[in-house]
C-alpha cells in the first residue's frame, strides 16, 4: 500500500471511532426526546422503534397542564429557576471577592484557605444534610425556596471560588497598577478595571453554579415537603408509582429540564474546563 492510502485508512479509522463515541454519548439523550414524543403503544413495546412513527405532543402537554403531584411542570421549572438564579446571584458576589483575595494578594493563611476549599468539597452533602436540615428548620426556612437557596450557596461557593480565582489571576496586574498610578482608588480599580475583564469568567462560574443548583436533588428532597414548592429533580420522582412508571410523561418532563442545561453548557464549555483543571496545567 502506498503511504497515502495508509493515511486515508488511519483517518477513516479515527473518524469511525469518533462516530461510535458520538452515538454512545448522544443516543441516550436522543432516546429521551424520542420517547417523549411517542404515543404509548410505541413506548410500551418490545420492538425497537427508532423514532416516533406517529409523533404526539400528548406527553408534553399533559405534564404542562395536569403535571404531576398536583402541580403543572411549569410550577416546578419555576421553582428550580428561582433556586438556581438565587444561588447564582448571591454566590457570585461572595465568590468574586474571595477569588480576588486569593489570586491578587499574598497573605498568611492563603494556602490554608485553598486547602480548606478542597477539603470542604470532599465532605458528602448527605453528611451535612442532617445538621443543615435542623438548622433550616430552626430558622423557619423549612419548605421555603430561600432555605434551599442558602444551602445551595454554601455548597457551590467553594468550587466557584476555586474556579474563579484562575480567571482573576489571568488578568494582567499591570492594568490595575496603571489605574492606581492614574489616581484610581481601590474600589474604582476593582470595579472599572478588574471586574469587566473578569466578567466572562464570572459568567462561566455562575453558569456552573446555576447548573449545580438546578440539578440538585438531595437537599430539595429533604428541605421541601410542600408539593407546590418542589423543584424539578424532586418532581421527577413522582412519575413512578409502586406499580408502574409513566415513561412518556417522565421523558417529556426530563426533556424540559435538560434543554436549558444543554444550552448553557454549550455556551461556557471551553471556559469551564480551563477553570476546572486550572493550576494543574502550567502556562
Amino acid at each position, binding site marked *: 500500500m502506498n503511504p497515502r492510502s495508509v493515511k486515508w485508512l488511519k*483517518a477513516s479509522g479515527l*473518524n469511525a471511532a469518533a462516530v461510535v*463515541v458520538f452515538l454512545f*454519548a*448522544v443516543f*441516550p*439523550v436522543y*432516546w*429521551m426526546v424520542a420517547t417523549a414524543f411517542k404515543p404509548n403503544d410505541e413506548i*410500551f413495546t*418490545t420492538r425497537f422503534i427508532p423514532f416516533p412513527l406517529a409523533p404526539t405532543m400528548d406527553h408534553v402537554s399533559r405534564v404542562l397542564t395536569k403535571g404531576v403531584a398536583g402541580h403543572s411542570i411549569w410550577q416546578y421549572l419555576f421553582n428550580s429557576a428561582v433556586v438556581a438564579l438565587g444561588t447564582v446571584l448571591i454566590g457570585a458576589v461572595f*465568590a468574586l471577592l474571595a477569588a480576588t*483575595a486569593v489570586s491578587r*494578594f499574598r*497573605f498568611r493563611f*492563603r*494556602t490554608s484557605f*485553598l486547602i*480548606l476549599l478542597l477539603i*470542604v*468539597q*470532599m465532605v*458528602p452533602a*448527605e453528611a*451535612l*444534610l*442532617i*445538621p*443543615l436540615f*435542623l438548622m433550616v*428548620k430552626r430558622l423557619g426556612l423549612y419548605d421555603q425556596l430561600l432555605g434551599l437557596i442558602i*444551602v445551595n*450557596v*454554601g*455548597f457551590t*461557593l467553594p468550587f466557584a471560588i476555586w474556579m474563579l480565582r484562575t480567571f482573576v489571576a489571568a488578568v494582567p496586574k499591570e492594568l490595575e497598577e496603571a489605574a492606581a498610578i*492614574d489616581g484610581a*482608588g*481601590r474600589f474604582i480599580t476593582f470595579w472599572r*478595571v478588574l*471586574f*469587566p475583564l473578569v*466578567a466572562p469568567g*464570572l459568567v462561566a462560574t455562575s*453558569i456552573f453554579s446555576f447548573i449545580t443548583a*438546578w*440539578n440538585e436533588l*438531595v437537599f430539595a428532597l429533604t428541605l421541601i415537603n410542600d408539593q407546590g414548592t418542589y423543584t424539578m*429533580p424532586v418532581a421527577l*420522582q413522582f412519575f413512578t408509582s409502586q406499580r408502574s412508571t409513566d*415513561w412518556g410523561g417522565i*421523558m417529556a418532563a*426530563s426533556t424540559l*429540564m*435538560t434543554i436549558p442545561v444543554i444550552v448553557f*453548557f454549550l455556551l461556557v*464549555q471551553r471556559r469551564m*474546563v480551563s477553570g476546572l483543571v486550572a493550576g*494543574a*496545567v502550567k502556562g
Partner: protein
Amino acid sequence: MMAQTSTVARGGGNSSAPARRRSHRPPRRPSGLPNWAVPYVLLVPGLLVIAILLLYPLYQMVDMSFHKVGLRQIRPNPQPAEFLGMQNYSDVFSSDLFWTSLRNTVVFAVVTVALTLILGTLVGLLLNKLGRKMSTFLVVGIMAAWATPPTATAIIWKWLFDSDAGVVNWALNLLPDGLSTLVFGRSDWSGQPWLNAPSTIYVVLVIAVVWASFPFIAVSVLAGLKSIPSELYEAARVDGSTPAATFRKITFPLLKPVFSVLLVLSIIWDFKVFTQLYVLAGGTTNREAFNLSLWAYTEAFSAPPKMGFGAAIAVILTVIMLVITAVYVRQIVRTEADVR
C-alpha cells in the same frame, strides 16, 4: 439571560471603561484600609458562608455522631440529646449493612473511576487526532451526555435497561445465540430485570455514571494535550519512537498533573454518588443496594429518624475520602504554590 449579562459586561469592559476613567478622574483618596488587611476583608464574606454552612455543620455532624438524636431532638422544644460515646460507631461497624454498603461504595468507585479515566483519556487522545470538523462534531456530542442532569441521566438509563421495553434487552437479543451464551451464559434476554438485584443495579449505575462523566475527562485531557509543545512530538518522531513509547515518555509525564486533578475529582464525585443511585434503586427501600451515602441518608431521614447513627456513617465516609485524596491534594497545593 445569562448570555445577555455576558455581552453587556464584555462590551462595557472593552470600550467604555478606560474612556470613562479619563473623563472624570476620581481624586486619589487615601483608603482607610491598610494594604495588608485588604485580602482578609475580601475573604470575610465567603469565609463566613463556608463557616456557617459547611464547617459548623461539619462540627455538628461529628458531635451528633456521639449522641442519640431522634424525633425528640428535632421537634420544636427539643430535648437534649443523650451522649452515647462510641455507641453509634460500634453499632455501625457491627451492622451487616455496613459491610455491604462499604463494599458497594468502594467497588463502585474503583470500577467507575478507572473506566471513566480510561475512556475519557482515549476519547481525549482521539479528539486531538481528529480533523477540525470531526473534533467539533464529537465535542458537541459528548457535551450532550455531560450536560444531562444526574436525575435525568438515571431516569434515561433506567428506561434503556427496562425489562420489557428497554433497548438494551432488545439489543442483547440481537446477538447471535452462541456468542451470547458464551459471553453471558444466556441467549434470551426478554424480560431480564436489571433493576431488581443490587449487582445489576450497580452495572447500570456504573454505565450511567461513566456515560455522564467521561466527557469532562476527555475535554480536560484534550486541553492538556493542546498545551504540550508540538516540537517534542516531532523530535520523538525523528528518533523513531513508537506511539506507545511517545505516550509513555512524553504525553503521560507532561499530563501527570492534569491526571492527578482528574483522579481526585473523580474519586470525590464517585465515592459519594447519591442522586443516580437513589433513582436507579427506586428510593430507600432496596437495602442491599445501599452505598454509604444512601445508607446515611436513609437512617437519618426515614422513620424513625436516627440522625446520630446516620451522622456516624457520614463521618466514616468523609474520613475514608479524606485519607484517599490527601496525597493528591498535597500535590495540587504544591503546584498551586508554584503557579502564582
